[in-house]
C-alpha cells in the first residue's frame, strides 16, 4: 500500500501508465478519492484497466476486479447481490469507458439498472475507443476525426451524432443520473456525494478529455473539459427518476470554435477550400445551441453557474470558502 499522502488514500495511486495529462486517470482518481477505499470497484476493459494493471502491478488500493469488456454492470450486479446475501453494505462502483457504457456494455447496464442493483456506474467518457488506437464509438461527437471515421474527400469525420446516453439511462426511471467533467471539481464532488448518498442504481457520465485521441496538449485537459461545458456541447445536468432536476447554468456561452481549435480531432474542419468544414462547424454550433436551449443553460442566472462551480475552495492557509463567507456576512 502507498501511504504517501496523509490526506487521502489514493485509491488510484501513482505509477500507472496513463498518458501524461490523461483525463480518464484524472477523473477516476477524483471519483475514487471521493468514494474512498471502502468500496468494491468493478472495471470494464479499457484504457483505465490497462494502464492501472500492467505487468503484475496494480495502481488500485481498494478491492478491484476486471472481468471483460461488456459485462462490468452484470459483474457488479453479482457483487452487489453477494454483498446483500452476506448482509454487507459495502458500496459497489463500476468504472467503464464510453465503449463499455454506450456500446458494448449498454445491455448489461440496462439490466443492472432495471433490476435495481445498488451500484454506482461511472462512465469516463472520452468519446472514442482510445485503448485500441482511437476508433469511433457511439459517444464520438459529430464530425470528429477518428481512425474509423477519417475525414477524406467524401467525409468530414464522423457522420453520426453522439448518443444521448444520459437520457437513455435516465429513462429507466432510476434514482440518479448525472453528467460531470473534470474541470468542475466542486460540481463533480457534489454529484459523487449525492450519488453515494442514494440507494439503487446510479449513473455518472464524466467527460474525460484524452490528449492522445483528441489530439491536444497534455496540459489542456482541464481547459478543454471546461470549454466543452462553456460552449454548451456537454451540459452538466442531473436527472432523477427520468426528470431533469438540476443543470449547471452557463455564466456565458463560448463560441464553438474556442473548443474546436484546441483539438486536432477537429482540425480538418478548418482552413478548407470548400466550405464543408464550415458547414460542420455550424452544425456543431447548432448542436450546442440546441442543448443550451433544451436544458435552459442560459436562462435566468442562479447561484449555481459555471463560474461558481469552478471556484476554488480555500483550505489551510487562508482557507475560507466563499459560500461560508457569504453566510457569515449575511448573518
Amino acid at each position, binding site marked *: *500500500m*502507498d501511504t*504517501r*499522502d*496523509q*490526506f*487521502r488514500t*489514493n485509491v*488510484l*495511486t*501513482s*505509477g*500507472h*501508465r*496513463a498518458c*501524461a*495529462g*490523461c483525463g480518464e*486517470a*484524472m477523473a477516476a*482518481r*477524483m471519483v475514487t478519492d471521493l468514494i474512498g477505499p471502502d468500496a468494491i470497484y468493478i472495471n470494464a476493459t479499457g484504457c483505465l484497466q490497462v494502464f*492501472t*494493471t*500492467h505487468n*503484475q*502491478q*496494480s*495502481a*488500485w*488500493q*481498494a478491492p478491484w476486479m476486471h472481468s471483460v469488456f461488456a459485462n462490468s454492470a452484470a459483474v457488479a450486479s453479482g457483487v452487489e447481490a453477494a454483498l446483500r446475501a452476506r448482509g454487507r453494505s459495502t458500496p459497489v462502483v463500476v468504472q467503464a469507458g464510453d465503449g463499455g457504457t454506450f456500446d458494448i456494455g449498454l445491455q448489461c447496464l440496462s439490466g443492472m439498472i432495471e433490476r435495481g442493483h445498488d451500484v454506482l456506474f461511472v462512465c469516463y467518457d472520452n468519446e472514442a475507443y482510445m485503448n485500441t488506437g482511437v476508433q469511433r464509438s457511439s459517444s464520438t461527437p459529430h464530425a470528429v476525426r477518428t481512425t474509423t471515421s477519417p475525414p477524406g474527400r467524401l467525409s468530414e469525420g464522423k457522420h453520426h451524432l453522439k448518443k444521448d446516453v444520459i437520457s437513455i439511462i435516465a429513462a429507466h426511471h432510476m434514482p440518479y443520473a448525472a453528467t460531470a467533467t*473534470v474541470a468542475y*471539481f466542486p460540481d463533480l464532488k457534489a454529484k459523487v456525494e449525492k450519488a453515494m448518498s442514494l440507494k439503487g442504481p446510479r449513473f455518472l457520465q464524466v467527460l474525460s478529455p484524452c*490528449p492522445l485521441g483528441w489530439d491536444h496538449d*497534455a*496540459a*489542456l*485537459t*482541464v*481547459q478543454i473539459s*471546461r470549454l466543452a461545458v462553456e460552449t454548451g456541447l456537454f451540459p452538466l445536468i442531473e436527472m432523477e427518476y427520468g426528470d431533469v432536476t438540476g443543470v449547471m447554468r452557463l455564466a456565458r456561452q463560448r463560441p464553438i470554435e474556442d473548443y474546436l481549435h484546441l483539438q486536432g480531432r477537429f482540425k480538418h474542419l478548418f482552413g478548407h477550400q470548400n466550405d464543408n468544414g464550415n458547414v460542420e462547424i455550424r452544425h456543431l454550433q447548432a448542436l450546442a445551441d440546441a442543448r443550451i436551449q433544451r436544458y435552459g443553460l442560459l436562462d435566468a442566472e442562479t447561484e449555481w453557474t459555471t*463560474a*461558481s462551480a*469552478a*471556484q*476554488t*475552495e*480555500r*483550505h*489551510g*492557509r*487562508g*482557507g*475560507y470558502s*466563499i459560500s461560508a*463567507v*457569504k453566510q*457569515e*456576512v449575511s448573518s
Partner: protein
Amino acid sequence: MSNLSIEPGSTTAYHTGEWRQQRPVYRDKWPPCGQSCPASEDIQAYLALASNKEWEAAWRKITERNPLPGVTGRVCHHPCETSCNRTQLDTSINIHGVERFLGDLAHEKGWRHERFTEVSQPQKVAVVGAGPAGLSCAFQLARRGYPVTIFDAMSAPGGTLRSAIPDYRLPKSVLSGEIDAILALGIELRLDTRIGQELSEQSLQDDFDAVFLAIGALKPRSFSSIDKSDHSVMSGTDFLQKINRGKSLSLPKQVAVIGGGNTAIDVARCARRLGAQVTVVCSQDRPGSHHGHADAQMPALPQEAMHAEAEGVRILFRTGVRRLVRNGQHLSGVEISRVDQVHDRQGRFNPVLFEGTETFLSAGLVIFAIGQEVNKSGLENLMKDGELGVIIGGDAAGKPRFAATAIGSGYQSAMSIIAYLTGIPPVYENHQKTDVTYKDLHTQYYPLLPRQDELMTEDRLSDFTEIVKGFSQGETLCEASRCLSCGVCFDCDNCWHFCPDAAVIKKPNGYEIDYNYCKGCGICALECPSGHIDMQREVG
C-alpha cells in the same frame, strides 16, 4: 495461484517520472500589492490570514513592516489597490479597509508588539523625529533588542501625522494608541527637544552608536514670488497644525486654497468644517481625466478630492494664481488664470499661465499648500554626506511624502543601521521573486464578488468627527477572501485534485511534487489559480 491477485498499490514500484520532459515547480511570486507597497507590507499574506479569521496573526503580519496599520488604513494613498490584479477581474480589493480593521482591532484587544529577542544589544541608536519614519525605525530596532531614544521638537509624537492630518481623517486617539504600543517596546521618547538647541549635535554623536534622522519636511515652500505680504495669508501646514492643536480659528466667509496635494485638500475640508466657502486652485487636471499627462493630474488622493467636492469644496482644475488682489493690505481675492503647462522642460513644477484668461476669485484668506521643504538648521554636521552611523530617512530624504513611504523608509533605515552596527549586509528576499501579472492567473477559479467600500457618516460638516466608518468583521472577511493570492499558494487543492498521477502529495503546510511519478503534463501549472507553479524544462 498467488499471482492471480495483485498487491494493491504495487505500481508505485514503477517510476513514471522517467517519462517527464518538463517539471512543475512551486514558486512564490511577488504579488503587485506587496511590490507597490511603500512600506513593503506582505499584503497577500495578511489578507490570507484575515480570510481565515486569524485576526491577530494578520495584524502581526502587517506589523512586521508597519507598526501603524490603524493610521495607514486611514491615510495611506494605497498604491496596492491601484496595482491589484483583481482590478482587471472586477474591482480591486479594499486593502486599506482590512488594514484599518486590523489596526483598530489590535487597539481594541490591547494586542502588544513582541520583541524578537529579549537580549539587549550594547549599541544605542538615536532617532530624530517622532513621525512615521522615526517611529517605524525605532520600532524595528527596539524589537531587535537595540536601545532606542527618539527626540522630537514637538510636544507630542507623530510628526505630520499629528500636525497635518485633520481629525476627521485620522482621529488622534488612533494615532496615539498605535504610538503608545510602539513605545511600549521600551523606546525612550524625548519631546520638545530640538537638535542644536535643547541638545547638541555633538552629544548625539557621542552618546549614540547610530543616528537616524527623520526630521520630515516641515518648512513651507515660500510663496513670496506671488505675494510679499503675510496679511490674510498663511501656509497649509501652519493652518493644519493650528487646527490639530485644537486652536479655534475664525475664518472669513470665503477662503482660497492654493495647491493640489493632500495638504491642500485637507486644508480645504477643514476650512469647510469651520464654516467657510472654500475654493481650491489647482494647476493640474482632475485625477483620472483623459487629457494631459499622468503627472499633470492632481496629486491628492482622488477619493479625498471627491470627498472634498462632496462636502461643498469647489476645486478649480488647471488654474493658477497670478497675484493676490489687495486693497492696500486688505485682501479682496486672487487673480487666477488657466494653466498651459504644469511642468517645464526640466520636469520641474513650473506652471505657465495663459494670458487673457484672468478671472477674479473673491477671498478673505488665502492658504498656500504648495509643498514643504526640509529644515536642516541645527543638523548641518550630521546631514553632511558620508557621515558614518547617520542615516537620513522619511520626508527628509526627499522621498514622496506619504506616510507609508516614511514607514518603509524607517524599516529600511533600521535594517541599514543594524547592518552598519553588525557588519552583516541586509537580505531583501522579495527581490529574488518574479512578478505575477493578471495573465499569470487562472481567473476562472475566482468567483466574481464586488468590492465593498466603507460607509460614510451622514453629517460631515458640523465637526471634525471621523467621516469614514470602519469595516465590520464580516466585511473585512469578505474583502480578504476576495484576494486572488497572486503567485502565492492558498491551498486550493487544484494541483492535488487534478494531477492524474497522484504525484502531488498534500502536506499539512502545502504540497509537494513526487518527481518519481510526475509525468510533466503541465496541468497543475495551467490550472493553478494564483500562478504559483512554473514549468521548467528537464535538462540532461
